[in-house]
């Protein structure tokens, strides 16, 4: 057994041991407040057991291991339905970027340790009402104010802002230069005067994302994490941190086995639906697609293990898996017929076809829309030209609204 396999086995054993306390079954029927409280205890248990901050430096409370161990752990963890999603963004991007770019090391260390133990949560204040994919077009501004800055504007789609203690934010500090060049990166206290958080109820019924308003929010200059005008580079660095995350060829929807079981159970034209050619074709096509993604993911892991950088084909997972999950979920509801109408808006997207279906559009938009991902593949992998950009090189305040 390789070292990694031994490590995986040990991690898997620990996860199984805590699953009754924190896993899928323990969460059934909990209010969101109770679920979050359980999540904080789970995060603390992970920290105590040595599975928090797996690939982070030990000086910040991490384990000092590699991406490979992190991805390996995540893949095992995913099996049990733990309440860890409250910390996914926090520990995925803002806190690592704070470690990298925060100036006051003692303050950073204190924050990181609290975040790793589930005591504090960080959010990422990037998207705005005027644009999500076009990040550099953001309008929230910070103006000099005494020795510090004053922030005004609005962010949106901010995951877990309503539970967050702190956030990282990109704002415009100079509207007279081209849009990428007038941005600066700060951290903010989400409890500061002038910060207002309003949850947004999404189509599926849940409210994980928020609008965040900034009205004359004053911060000192030591909140700054980039040079003035150098915020875009740190924003991109933030988005690149978790390039090799644990992926799911089911597109974070149900496993194909569940569809096969459904097709065996349901009668169509007087025989099991599994015998119907239309159903068979979709099963076969979905299996072939998912098997391809699985093979890509395994090879990426083998490459990391061999000290190589995985190929760009890893970027296909979200694009391919989520949109096919959307269609397969529709077909599963077709198969259920009238029985499909019974709807539980809190059901797991990994186990319930209606929940998977109604939340699938979010998956195709959040964290890089299908269209943005296709552009990225076309431009970065295949070397095709950028789209025509009428705002290129024009000072931000002269771009036609």
């Amino acid at each position, binding site marked *: 057994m390789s070292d990694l396999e031994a490590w995986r086995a040990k991690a898997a054993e620990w996860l199984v041991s805590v699953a009754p306390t924190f896993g899928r079954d323990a969460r059934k029927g909990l209010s969101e407040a109770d679920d979050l409280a359980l999540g904080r205890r789970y995060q603390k248990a992970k920290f105590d057991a040595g599975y928090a901050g797996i690939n982070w430096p030990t000086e910040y409370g991490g384990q000092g291991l590699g991406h490979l161990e992190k991805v390996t752990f995540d893949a095992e963890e995913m099996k049990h339905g733990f309440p860890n999603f409250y910390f996914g963004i926090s520990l995925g991007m803002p806190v690592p970027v704070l470690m990298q770019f925060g100036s006051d090391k003692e303050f950073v260390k204190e924050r990181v340790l609290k975040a790793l133990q589930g005591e504090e949560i960080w959010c990422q204040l990037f998207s705005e009402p005027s644009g999500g994919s076009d990040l550099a077009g953001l309008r929230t501004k910070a103006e000099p104010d005494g020795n510090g800055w004053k922030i005004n504007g609005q962010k949106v789609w901010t995951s877990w802002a309503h539970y967050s203690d702190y956030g990282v934010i990109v704002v415009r500090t100079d509207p007279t230069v081209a849009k990428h060049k007038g941005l600066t990166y700060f951290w903010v206290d989400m409890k500061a005067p002038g910060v207002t958080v309003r949850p947004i109820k999404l189509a599926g019924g849940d409210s994980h994302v928020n609008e965040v308003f900034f009205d004359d929010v004053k911060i000192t200059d030591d909140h700054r994490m980039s040079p003035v005008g150098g915020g875009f580079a740190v924003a991109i660095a933030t988005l690149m941190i978790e390039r090799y995350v644990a992926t799911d060829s089911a597109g974070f929807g149900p496993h*194909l086995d569940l569809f*096969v079981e459904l*097709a*065996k159970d349901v009668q169509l034209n007087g025989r099991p639906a*599994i015998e119907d050619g239309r159903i*068979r*074709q979709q*099963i*076969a*096509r979905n*299996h*072939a*697609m998912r*098997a*391809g*993604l*699985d*093979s*890509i993911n*395994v*090879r990426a892991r*083998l*490459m990391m293990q*061999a000290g190589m950088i995985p190929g760009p*084909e890893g970027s*296909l997972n979200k*694009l*391919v898996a989520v949109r096919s999950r959307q269609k397969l979920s529709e077909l599963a509801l077709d198969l259920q017929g009238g029985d499909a109408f019974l709807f539980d808006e809190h059901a797991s997207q990994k186990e319930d076809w209606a929940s998977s279906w109604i939340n699938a559009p979010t998956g195709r938009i959040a964290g890089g829309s299908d*269209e943005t991902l*296709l*552009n990225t*593949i*076309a*431009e970065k*992998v*295949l*070397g*095709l*030209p*950028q*789209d*025509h950009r009428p705002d290129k090189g024009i000072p931000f305040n002269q771009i036609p609204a």
Partner: protein
Amino acid sequence: MTILYDEGQQAIATESRRVLEARVGKDALLPLLETVGEYHRPFWDTAKEQGWTALALPEADGGLGLGLIELGLIAHQAGRGISGAPFLTSSFGAAKAIELFGSDAQKARWLPGLASGETIGAIAFAAGPDALPRQPDATVAGDSLDGTVRGVSAGLAADVAIVFANGPGTPVLALADLANARRAAVPSFDNSRLIADLDLSGLPAETLAVGSAARDAALRILALQAVVTAHEQTGGAEALMEIARDYALTRKAFGQPIGAFQSVKHRIAELYGLVELARANCIHAAAREGAADFITAAAAARLSATEAYDTAARDCIQIHGGIGVTWEIGLHLHMRRARSLAIEQGSSLFWEDVLVDQLAGEAA
């Protein structure tokens, strides 16, 4: 478990690509489309000279003792360059049937020639759309065969065929020496595949397997061939994606390269996705030879590779506009090959059923 190619395997890919790019081109392939009964001899001479015919056969039988992974790498390159003959797959299938299910005498009689490439093999299983029919067109009565198997790739040149036939109340996998077979050339849209209707009547039948064992054996041979073909399809799809990309970078319309239009660049990015899924499935399937889930892996590779090659042929021509449909540019060579490879060894309809039977735990 899938694999990363090692240095030796990467060298096989690089070297075979170099040789094929030097020796196979559309100028030689285009005239073959209008000639019935001819294949691109320099391609096959190259395959023999480079040892590709022997690659995946056991050393004891005149082979080189490598496997599907290595043969797949060659097939991928052959697909990129639109190989000039179907024998890499058809002879491999026949040889594997003899290696796995033949007697020592049959192995001694046929395998050295198949390994050297001097002997050509063919697989004659299909009836219409069914790659493994419940009622095969060939029958075995006593020691001899009867019936005609239609649309057999390599059938015009084959010296030996593996036949899936109706025995007395049970299927039979049989070996047929084709020296005295009557064959009718089928003029096709891809003539260098050497498609023939094989009239087997009166040929001696040498039995390889009987009953459900015959069916299992035939499916295993089809799956082995399907993995080779899937590599070939993936190579073709990859080449078309690159051709489309290169054209979109140079061809201009409305003052910019057409690759700057999302309707074009997204189409090519989608091809990238199809090619990479097919490649990943091919690598996985080749590495699963001999494992319990080999049929499942082969079916997945075959389905994704067929989709990739057909789609790439469609879209690459579409991106070229008018020039794409001319004879001279030769994109139709890929379009034709995408279809002939989609049909040989069973179409997607066949492999979808095979795959679902495996996943649902039902007998085929």
